[in-house]
């Protein structure tokens, strides 16, 4: 469908207009940091010869391996979930983990709202709209946080977050919540689909067209911003292209425009339309990576996907996100082969990763520094607080102080993860702000949710296990909370905190909530949250 012409404006026409932009920027600086979706294609049937025979692999499917997999792929797995995976066996479990999900209902009717006519608005009216947009983004963050906590035993929300970091676009520049939603919806819908579809949808979506200045780029002097990042960050990786390739690609990516929610790109004809296309697009021949022709943006994308480096680049990013910061190049070669031979279907590559012996090598246990959003939401889940009213303000504080604002990645390179999460500021705050779930003593703002300690403890008791309850509970807490196993000294210390001189057989799970035993249990939880091991998964 061709969108109505009268909305299309470009940055050169002062989209949405400079006053609104400045108001927005001012507002964003003060408050924010302190789609066009095609019908989903059915997932291509996997070519049998590329399919893994899961049962043939020598992987012990037990508590350590399953909790390793779940800690990396879902938010805050609990004991029941770990047991469910063990009982279902590896093949069924991984299929469930990678199963396509029904698309959720959107966070509000605003996702389809039309654009205001900025030129007819007073300054106060503009301010009101910018405030409303900001409020929507907060709602949107909360909506996503809840989906992460309620994502069950499925990877979709974590993959959505992965693509958000991969194609990192930030609301402070994109301006329209509608555009951010469109992009997020593409990530979620195509998160395990075909990379080529994903790349095209993202590239020609309004958010990316604004974020990397595709919109408004003209043949006379094209803007190189997108062309460079397309190669450096989205397909090939740095050093696999030349500056003349950047220039050629920038000429191909001219003549595409967006008004913020619609674009002049037609997904069927793969061309733009309107005078922007006829007047601004460069129809001349360009020489890109040795091939000369009147290339369009789609041609460039196709040529990039033909390069072997592209699959390697995607697999490296997946490996880094899900397994470890330093990639094993031999493994990446095998994984990239799978991605290529499946014509860029993402799911088979994930299946390869999650069913490889390599993934379950115990050297990787605890080698991931958790991102603060999942660490916080996962702890809420472990503490059985996910059904309580969600404290949006506190979640804002978490995001701002721990340096991970959803819809506001630091730059186009996304979140680098691992040790970049941890510094002398964030480490103590990660401890203090998560301890606030228990002691309500947050350094920022108040946090008032109620923690039902006995029910947390109850959820950590095993079926058919006749060791003392408190011992089972501590073992399970170590499993869920700590990325590295506790040694004997630490285990003893944890037990001492819980018992405070009493004996394990004195500890009684049926004692009422006001009993001193439970305040010691709170001490135990906070002690564990403050351990360096808590940061790791």
């Amino acid at each position: 469908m061709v969108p109505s012409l009268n909305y299309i404006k470009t940055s050169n026409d002062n989209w949405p207009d400079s006053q609104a932009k400045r108001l927005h920027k001012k507002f964003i600086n003060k408050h924010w940091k302190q789609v066009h979706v095609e019908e989903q294609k059915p997932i291509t049937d996997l070519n049998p010869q590329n399919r893994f025979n899961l049962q043939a692999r020598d992987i012990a499917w037990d508590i350590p391996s399953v909790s390793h997999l779940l800690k990396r792929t879902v938010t805050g797995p609990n004991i029941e979930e770990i047991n469910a995976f063990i009982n279902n066996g590896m093949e069924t479990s991984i299929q469930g983990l990678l199963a396509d999900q029904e698309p959720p209902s959107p966070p509000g009717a605003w996702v389809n709202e039309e654009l205001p006519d900025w030129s007819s608005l007073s300054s106060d009216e503009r301010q009101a709209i910018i405030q409303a947009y900001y409020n929507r983004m907060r709602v949107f963050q909360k909506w996503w946080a809840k989906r992460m906590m309620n994502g069950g035993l499925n990877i979709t929300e974590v993959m959505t977050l992965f693509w958000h970091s991969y194609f990192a676009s930030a609301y402070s520049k994109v301006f329209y919540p509608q555009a951010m939603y469109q992009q997020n919806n593409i990530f979620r819908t195509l998160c395990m689909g075909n990379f080529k579809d994903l790349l095209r949808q993202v590239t020609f979506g309004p958010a990316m067209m604004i974020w990397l200045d595709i919109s408004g780029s003209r043949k006379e002097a094209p803007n190189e911003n997108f062309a460079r990042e397309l190669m450096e960050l989205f397909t090939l990786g740095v050093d696999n292209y030349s500056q003349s390739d950047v220039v050629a690609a920038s000429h191909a990516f001219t003549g595409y425009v967006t008004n913020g929610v619609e674009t002049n790109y037609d997904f069927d004809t793969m061309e733009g339309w309107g005078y922007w296309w006829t007047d601004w697009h460069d129809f001349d021949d360009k020489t890109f990576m040795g091939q000369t022709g009147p290339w369009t943006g789609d041609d460039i994308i196709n040529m990039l996907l033909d390069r072997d480096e592209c699959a390697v680049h995607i697999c490296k990013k997946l490996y880094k996100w899900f397994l470890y910061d330093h990639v094993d190049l031999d493994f990446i070669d095998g994984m990239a082969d799978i991605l290529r031979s499946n014509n860029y279907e993402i799911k088979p590559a994930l299946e390869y990763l999650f069913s490889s012996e390599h993934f379950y090598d115990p050297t990787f246990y605890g080698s991931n520094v958790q991102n603060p959003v999942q660490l916080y939401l996962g702890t809420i889940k472990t503490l059985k607080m996910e059904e309580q009213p969600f404290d949006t303000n506190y979640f804002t504080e978490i995001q701002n102080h721990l340096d991970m604002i959803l819809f506001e990645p630091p730059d186009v390179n996304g979140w680098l993860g691992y040790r970049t999460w941890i510094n002398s500021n964030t480490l103590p705050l990660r401890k203090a702000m998560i301890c606030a779930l228990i002691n309500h003593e947050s350094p920022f703002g108040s946090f008032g949710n109620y923690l039902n300690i006995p029910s947390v403890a109850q959820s950590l008791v095993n079926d058919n296990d006749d060791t003392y309850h408190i011992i089972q509970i501590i073992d399970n807490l170590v499993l869920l909370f700590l990325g590295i196993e506790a040694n004997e000294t630490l285990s003893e210390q944890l037990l001492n905190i819980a018992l405070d001189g009493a004996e394990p057989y004195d500890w009684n799970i049926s004692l009422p909530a006001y009993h001193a035993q439970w305040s010691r249990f709170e001490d135990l939880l906070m002690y564990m949250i403050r351990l360096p091991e808590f940061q790791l998964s």
Partner: protein
Amino acid sequence: MKRRDFIKSSLALYALGSYLPTALLGSKNRFSYRNSNIDSDRIVILIKMNGGNDGLNTLIPYQNSSYYQQRPAIAIPSEQSLPITDTLAFHPALENWQTFFEQQKLAIIQGVGYADGNLSHFRSSDIWDTGSNEDIELTTGWLGRLLELEYPGFPDYAPEHPLAIQYNSANLLEFKTETSNTGLYLYDPDTMYSIISGNYIDNLNSDIPETFGGDELAFIRELDHMSFNYSQIISEAAQNAPNTIMNYPDTNIGQQFRITARLIAGGLTTPFYRFYQNGYDTHVEQLYSHEQLLSNLSDALNVFFDEMDALELLDRIIIVTTSEFGRRVYENASEGTDHGTSAPVFIFGSNLNGGVFGDDPDLTNLDDNGNLQVQFDYRQIYTTIMKNWFGLNTNTVDQVFNDNFQTIPFLDEALYSQPKTGPNGFKLNSVYPNPFNSSTMISYTLPKDHSVIIRLLDIRGRVLRVTQLGKQKAGIHLFKLNGRELPSGSYIAQVEIEGSSLTQKIILIK
């Protein structure tokens, strides 16, 4: 009241002498390990203009017709720019910089970059941070390597003050060593100590498995420990700064200057600071955004300059701007500029040689990509700082870059560059605390039995006091230097054995 009077009156309070951090005065359980020239009282503040600053619209070749031809939409009109030479003028937002230039407090190094400039933000930033050539990828930062060379036991033996403080959340490559990071990130020095100490657990799970997971645990544990050790001294410094500190703009860069001013005024002797100002990647409509960025930077820097000047601390500080690259000479059709190569570096301070170093950019002799040629390698700036600001020897500096770079004469050679290690293992270990209030301890190591003389000199080298200690045995010795009868000021402590003497500049504040 004028801003300057305001500061002067706050100085009266400052001079009462009660502000010295208690941790500096007492002999608390802190590392007292000092043998590098970096432990002078000198400070370098590095500011990253992140995203690639447009040098041509910052320092404008306002008589060059090619500049106006290649930038029809975004050139700064010559009548609006602020001339500093016959050919160069500042962006109109940089009025203060024009003044600094006139006062010889600003050195401009033209055309700074490196050969075969990489146009990727991330790669080029890595190059500047690691101090590598374009075609080499290093995993450690140039400052990480320098500090590791100068403090070989780091982090087990760390100096009493943090070596580097940075205000970017990411774990900066610039300060990275093979196993650790010498840069401490600071957000709010007031709450830092209570949050860190309130959540610190002395570790019990002491065995670290030999796995990748174990590596990460070791990293976090060490950072946890280092933050805990340094948090008290940082918050004490912040608290002990005069509370009438000047009004800094409520911008991100303004807050970085504000916190730093408090720490320096409060007695912290950390030698390196790294600031960040984001937003210089001006691909579209750059006139407005670039102006905002420059004026935010200039406003904040100006307050800091005034304050340090009033506190008589400015002589100890230089401020250096860096950016991963400059921008393209010709504008694009989005009224912005794409990635370029070289750009000017600006260095501010009262203890430097002001002026323009290098030629004006040649806008017609460009490289194959339409970018400016490089005149100075960025490592020449760093080399000049290491050699002339901190007085480090050529050998050390060459080890940092595994190469030799010429200095640029924007700084005179350091006056107090005597080594702290004499021949045959004679060492001046530390003078601690420094600055000091009533007394300070000089620690030195004798390789064998020696007669020792301790002298106290004023800053011009006149001997004020001589103490003959007679023959002492080989080993570590402490000498208590009493400053009760002396006025506040800078002094030099000198320890002499036969044929060799070592000195350390010390500051007495009453």
